[in-house]
């Protein structure tokens, strides 16, 4: 009897894997084509863009740059200075000291001649207590505002920034990111080009600065990182950022913007209640919530994406740190998808509900589980001597070839579009990485993803009833906002 059940399961799994394999291949082919089309259009559009005007025109919207900082004492002054020297007309820089335990605040106060102001802080979005809001009497630093508050995490810190931001567009960035001097003008462009569809957010690309030469806030020479993990992340950056997000933005199905470099409409962020601090994936959760709001209000909208390399950061090359990051990403994805379950396969939510959400559930959230069971399945078939094991082994080989195809395509894609990694030896390193990634790195990534699932179920990172009530509050705030504007 049990043996019967066992073989029944095998049949079901077999069928499932067949369907999934076919879907994966089809979807990645579609993604590649879409991203190619989008990049071609983008490069064409770019040849007509003149950014000189943006900086000084009175029509251009103002940008409030929000950068939360926690224990960044070592580099904070340098980072703040580079932010203040960005090439743009109307902008302000708001640094939020999230209860740092080191001398972050002191360094800022002394370097920028800051003084505490009598700012009447009345939080629209509830946050942890704000201890003081500082500004400088020195005219050179007139754009700078520093908020000192109790520690509450990145989302909470950003929310305090949102509460006091005074310009139309918010730029939420990681304080240790390197921004090129024209990054603001380029990211603002999609907002300015909007006609019938309201642009609610613009995502950017976060490049990998490891091992590169940086000068005056721009990467001058691109080098591939030394370590295996670093090289892997370069490939991933080509695949996920350049190719993946370009493809998604073409169908207006983008559900995620990088938390390290994202621009948003301030009034809309306030309307949906700001970031949600109880989730570890606060960047994705905000975008999904904003889109949800727009669908529910029946306002045509889009989330744009700018693939120009404007922002760079150092990615973790240490395995421990990287595994924690991936674990957190997985938990964040699960939490966001869970919170917004109502979107799944619901035509009311357009492309996001019908395509992006299911895709993210199956191919991002459940991906490690599916992959792991696929391998186990094939090994089981081999073990019991089922002839059909050969077919599934063939499928695995094909998956490997698919990954080669997609990765090579992404590299070629970058070459045609930007061609930053020019050195022959760098290309060779990347090619070697493409060949070995599925065996050396990918199993680790799958493992970390599964750990993320386990940690999520174990309740790490604030899951549970808290999330439900927290979200409810945001919804209530939204409803309140609606009522008062009618």
């Amino acid at each position, binding site marked *: 009897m049990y043996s019967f059940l066992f073989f029944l399961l095998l049949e079901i799994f077999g069928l499932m894997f067949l369907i999934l394999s076919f879907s994966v291949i089809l979807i990645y082919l579609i993604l590649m084509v879409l991203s190619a089309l989008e990049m071609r259009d983008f490069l064409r559009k770019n040849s007509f863009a003149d950014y000189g005007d943006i900086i000084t025109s009175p029509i251009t919207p103002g940008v409030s740059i929000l950068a939360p900082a926690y224990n960044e004492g070592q580099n904070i002054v340098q980072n703040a200075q580079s932010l203040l020297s960005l090439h743009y007309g109307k902008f302000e820089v708001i640094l939020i000291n999230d209860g740092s335990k080191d001398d972050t605040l002191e360094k800022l106060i002394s370097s920028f001649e800051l003084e505490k102001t009598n700012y009447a802080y009345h939080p629209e979005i509830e946050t942890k207590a704000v201890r003081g809001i500082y500004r400088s009497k020195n005219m050179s630093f007139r754009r700078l505002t520093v908020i000192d508050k109790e520690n509450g995490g990145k989302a909470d810190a950003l929310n305090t920034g949102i509460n006091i931001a005074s310009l139309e567009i918010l730029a939420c960035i990681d304080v240790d990111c390197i921004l090129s001097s024209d990054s603001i003008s380029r990211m603002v462009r999609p907002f300015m080009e909007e006609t019938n569809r309201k642009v609610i957010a613009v995502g950017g690309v976060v490049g990998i600065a490891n091992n590169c030469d940086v000068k005056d806030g721009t990467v001058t020479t691109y080098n591939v990182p030394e370590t295996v993990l670093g090289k892997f992340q370069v490939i991933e950056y080509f695949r996920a950022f350049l190719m993946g997000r370009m493809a998604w933005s073409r169908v207006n199905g983008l559900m995620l913007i990088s938390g390290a470099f994202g621009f948003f409409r301030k009034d809309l962020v306030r309307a949906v209640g700001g970031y949600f601090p109880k989730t570890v994936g606060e960047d994705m959760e905000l975008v999904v919530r904003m889109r949800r709001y727009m669908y529910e209000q029946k306002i045509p909208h889009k989330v744009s994406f700018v693939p120009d390399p404007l922002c760079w950061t150092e990615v973790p090359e240490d395995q421990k740190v990287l595994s924690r990051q991936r674990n957190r990403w997985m938990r964040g994805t699960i939490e966001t998808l869970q919170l917004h379950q109502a979107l799944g396969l619901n035509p009311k939510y357009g492309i996001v509900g019908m395509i992006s959400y299911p895709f993210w559930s199956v191919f991002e959230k459940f991906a490690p589980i599916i992959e792991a069971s696929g391998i186990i399945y094939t090994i089981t078939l081999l073990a019991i001597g089922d002839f059909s094991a050969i077919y599934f082994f063939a499928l695995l080989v094909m998956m490997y070839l698919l990954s080669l195809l997609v990765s090579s395509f992404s590299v*070629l894609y970058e070459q045609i579009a930007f061609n930053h990694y020019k050195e022959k030896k760098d290309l060779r390193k990347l090619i070697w990485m493409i060949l070995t990634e599925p065996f050396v790195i990918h199993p680790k990534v799958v493992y970390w993803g599964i750990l993320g699932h386990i940690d999520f179920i174990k309740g790490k990172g604030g899951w549970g009833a808290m999330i439900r009530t927290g979200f409810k509050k945001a919804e209530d705030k939204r409803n309140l906002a609606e009522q008062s504007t009618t």
Partner: protein
Amino acid sequence: MSKRLHWIIFGLFSLIPGLSQAQEDPVPRDSTGFYEFLKSQREVPGLSYRYIFSEKGITLAYRSDSLFSLSKTDSGYVSKPFADFSWIDELQQQLVVDSLMYQIQLELYSQPKSIEVAQEYLSDLIGKGDYLVKVQEDLPDVDLVSLAAKMPYLPVQKFKLKFMSDYRLLAVTLIIVFFFIASAAMIISMLVMKANKIKREALQDEYEGIIIEPLTTLLFEKGVKDIMAMDEAEIHSFFPKNLLVKELYQHVLIDRIIGLNKKMKGEFKEKLKALYKKLELDKVSIKSLHHRKWDRVTMGLVQINEMDLIEALPEVKKFTNSSNFHIRSRAVSALLNLSEHVDFKALRDQTYPLSLWQQMNYLRIIRFVGLHKDLNFETLLDSKNQSIRVFAIKLVRILGRVDMIDRLISYEETASDEEKIEILETYATVGAHMESRFINVCLRSSNPSVAAAAAKAAAVIGDADSEEILLDLLQSETDFRRKRSFLRSLYKLNKEKFEMVTSGDSSSDLLEIRNHILDPMLQDV
């Protein structure tokens, strides 16, 4: 999502064929069927059968027959027990030929049992899995497969296996083939594209190299009149005819000439424009207006704009309301830039919402053109498109056109909320003190954005009425941010009233705001 998932899984389940069959009892309940079944099974552990005969007709031959091995009983004879049921046909045929009366008796563990008991027993065995039903008509390879698989050999399983392995094979093969075809197609096309791109770039570099000298010489050695007077032969001595007909060569020339035009001043611009026309590149630009692809059309429009090809304007007009954002944006730019009396009508008649990007570009052109031409953009206020009217109001403000204020005043009645906000800002910027009435009306608007804009304007050009209204609003307002903006306006208008409201036993909110407003470092917030 989970509910839907349940349905999907359920659906999958029902796809599994043969599922239902497995639960059926294979043992036929009718006696003929049962015997047929037994025959097909040949031997069944525990079951056997004998033949019972009466005395009549049993010949001596039979009695000594080793096949039946008859033994004498009280009522007749009984055969030996047989275990192999497939012999029944032959045995019974023998008996029929010899016209013998016989009875078949089923025995379970050598005990005579009725057919029902035997059926029960067999069903039981099969159900428990202790007995495996044999199926006759196997193809040898499936047999091998199932043998090799050492799988439980249920008839259901075998059928399923055949069906499944066939379709799995088919499916996997199809997937593999599909994959290889698709990836081959993709790789080939990308390689072809890359090769073409490299070729084109090499050629482009070459052309760029060879036009430098002719251009340089021409620009310095010839005056504008000389250029215009050049005949074909002379032109071709600088720019070879066989190259001039090539599209890429033209493209490079156009690009470089326009690039130079942007970076040079004075008579060089005239020379470049004359040269452009001499080389008939203007015809190329105008021709690209009719191209299929939008980026070529846009490039043509840009070139027309840069090179002041005024004669192309009638053509350009046709594109001003194109559904493609870039085309219509550039077409209007060209019109504003090149038309003799700055043509605002095309802009007015745009049906698509006007983006900020376009506004920025148009503003730049309008400012530039306004240096030596009249700007009669009043007509924009008559546009049916709200975004255009909003832009018009912005223009009044940014260009400081105080003469248009009267027009705006007559416009106030029909203005939408968004336009009202722009008007308020404009009045404030130009200092239209006489319009405080309008501001006061807007202060009481139900739309908080309008009220906020009115408050900002009131700070600059409000009057005594405004102060009263602000005081009034402060009492009823609950939103902190709005209170702050009202209070700030009041502060700018009338410091005494401000003091009055915020000192004494006013709420903590007001005190906080007061300190905020008085703080010199927070003047702009």
